[in-house]
């Protein structure tokens, strides 16, 4: 699973099939099937809108996932900056042309589907940082000079996403970026410093949160002694 693969290696079609991460493929497949049952159950035990649309989408995107995995890794390496900026502009587009639903603006209307660029940004940021750190030599890895770009690349999309508002996705984007930086060899102390800084600004950050977001966070920390009648409403469905 953890075979380090050089960026230069270019596998043939056959090798690709054999080197597939089958555990991942099956995990996703099982997850998709389980969620199909969940949908079937919420539809009241019938094949209705939610179940059908889930099956359709899962099928399409599972095929897409297989297709994408056949693209040579070199392609992703070459295009990663471009991809990042493309997604970033999409996020910007959301800010001005996005669809608003349930009080948040997260989607771009592509007429045949609604695209949520923040989801793409999760991958985009990882690609960007991976390429960036690949180019930085191990000696320069922890010099302050090389920290600026990753931090800006990390914070810019997070600000865009969290003002949509979509706290959950922005946290995921952040953690994806932070893990890549850490894997690349950035020293632990930088993370500790920024965690400290983050905690210090927390009181101010919280004041920017919406009331329902606050109560969501509070509820997460509170013990589960809620009245049994309304506990469902504390979770976004």
């Amino acid at each position, binding site marked *: 699973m*953890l075979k380090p693969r050089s960026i*230069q290696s270019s596998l043939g079609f056959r090798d690709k099939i054999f080197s597939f991460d089958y555990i991942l493929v099956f995990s996703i497949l099982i997850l998709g099937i389980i969620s199909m049952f969940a949908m079937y159950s919420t539809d009241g035990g019938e094949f209705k809108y939610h179940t059908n649309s889930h099956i359709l989408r899962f099928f399409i995107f599972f095929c897409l996932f297989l297709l994408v995995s056949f693209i040579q890794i070199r392609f992703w390496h070459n295009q990663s900056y471009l991809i990042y900026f493309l997604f970033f502009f999409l996020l910007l587009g959301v800010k001005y042309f996005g669809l608003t639903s349930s009080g948040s603006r997260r989607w771009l209307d592509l007429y045949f589907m609604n695209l949520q660029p923040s989801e793409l940004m999760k991958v985009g940021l990882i690609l960007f940082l991976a390429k960036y750190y690949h180019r930085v030599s*191990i000696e320069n890895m922890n010099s302050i000079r090389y920290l600026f770009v990753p931090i800006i690349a990390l914070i810019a999309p997070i600000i865009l996403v969290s003002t949509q508002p979509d706290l959950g996705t922005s946290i995921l984007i952040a953690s994806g970026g932070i*893990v890549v930086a*850490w*894997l*690349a060899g950035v020293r632990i102390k930088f993370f500790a410093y920024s965690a400290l800084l983050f905690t210090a600004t927390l009181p101010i950050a919280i004041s920017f949160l919406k009331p329902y977001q606050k109560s969501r966070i509070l509820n997460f920390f509170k013990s589960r002694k809620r009245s*049994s009648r309304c506990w*469902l409403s504390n979770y976004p469905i």
Partner: protein
Amino acid sequence: MLSPGSGSTVIKSKLIGRRIFLLTAAKAVVMVGLVGRLISLQINQATKYKSLSDKNRFREWKLAPERGVIRDFFDQELASNEPLYQVHLVPENSNNLNQLFVRLKGILDISDKKISYLKRLINKQKPWEPVIVSDNLNWADFSRINLFLHELDGVEPIVSVARTYPDNSSAHILGYVSQISAKDLKTKKYLKDLSVPGMTVGKTGLERKLDEKIIGKVGFQRYEVNAFGKRIKEIQINKGQSGISFKTTLDYEVQKYTNELLKDKAAAVCVMDIYNGDIVSLVSAPTFQPNAFVHGLDKDYWNSLIKDGKKPLTNKVMSGLYPPGSTIKTLVALSALENGIIKTSDTFRCKGKIELYGEKFHCWEKKGHGIVNLRKGIQRSCDVYFYEVARKLGVDRLSVTAKKFGLGKQVLSDFVEERSGVVPNTKWKKKFIGQNWYIGETLHSGIGQGYFQSTPIQLCLMTAQIANGGFEIKPRIIYDKSNNNLREYINYKNENPNDPLPTDLLVKNFNLKPLFENKNHIKIIKDAMFSSSNEPGGTSYRHRIENPKFTFAGKTGSSQIKRFTEAQREAEVKQIDLNYKDRDHALFIAFAPYKDPKYAISVVVEHGGSGGSAAAPIAKKIIKKVIERHDLRKEISYAEGDSI
């Protein structure tokens, strides 16, 4: 740029490899944590969360069972059920109670008083316990509520059943039902699992006596509900069990007839079959509306009931205590005969009064009855004759006979309101009053005054046991097919008319308990009662029926409320001239037909004056009605496989 120094690359991939390993380990830890939590939730605490989610998913509504029906001997319904439209409110299902009440007020006609009462009730109860907003709606209001139901969160329209009585004629013996009170819940164990809104329990009479069996078993409806508590699907329904229905020995036609006769009077009537003790009619007047109690009593009506001097809520037949007056003379004479104190030929001279131990004892006939024997004594109801007999007999021997014939103890079982009355004797006075017995009190007891207290049903039982030849019967109001031994005996006698069975053989063969020593003594008393009703000079001669089919033999009585002063006696004041409250109670006991007795009756008219003028005419009409319906009754008995 793509290929920095190879040494650096190796270090870099080593570093990345190490960190990926750490990351994977961290992921594994998180994964283990997640799986562990899942196991804990889904397996270890499965029952807890299953029941929690079922509680969320399912909601139960309890259903009040239908009360059993009470029928008369001819299967007429005396107490039945009717559909009832109610509006209940479950406070926890409503977001804004105040707003809801305003809305409800617009739809139904609810007073502010009722609303504040409901609010107080809601504060006292648990939020999921329903309150009844309106317990008896007409169809128009009920359908209007259903129309607006979508905007009335927490309101539930309910179709239920309620007790209903066809009329008021049997109100006292049937009793009434009403909402369960806190006291009921405490004192009646069978109500423990029966607390359903709108449930009623029997408070008096048969409804109370039969409550445990007639009330039925509570049912429930289980629904699957959504997150807002709205019913989605019915999962299970248990309609409960309606209560057991009962057939009584009452005759609804006679009840109605009697009730009509007693209109505007304070009176009590009891009619009994003399062989099996079936109570054919039991009416107390004035009556009340039992239907008014079912849906919460109107305050004005309640006040009018409790302020009425004629006491409409009291069942006078079972809880009214009256001195038996001259009706006791039948037992005084019987007791004296049985104890060998007198013979039928013994006579006394009645001069209108006698003086004993320095006290004057008056006869009701101021002029006196002249020479009086036992038959004439009962016929004319001569007080002086019975003063003399009582003096010789003594109160203790009288009380033994009186108790044997059913005075001084409850006649029916399990009626909370039935009273046992008083049969006085020397021991009783010592115990309850703490004084010695005076001989003068014996004389008063001899004419049924003084300490004597009896209920009309006791007097009826006494008469029935004289009429059937002196055998003990057990009165009943709930019909059952069990054969009565006295009936067997009669059948035997009819089949073997020439087979004179001695009494002890009767007792052995038919399990009969004779209340006499000598059969002839009973016959003498019956004959004397016949003369009282059917021979000139008898106290109820005016109201006789000559048709032998209906001819009855009876005894009048009047129980004194207030002693006459000498001045009143001299002025010959008539009862009718007295204040209503001061007039005597009028009593009459009888059995009929004389030749082949079948029924006994007792009539008490409060403040009616004399038994001959106030009670006997009522008895006469009822006797006629009852005997006219005897053949119908016999048919039913045959059909039920009972021998008569």
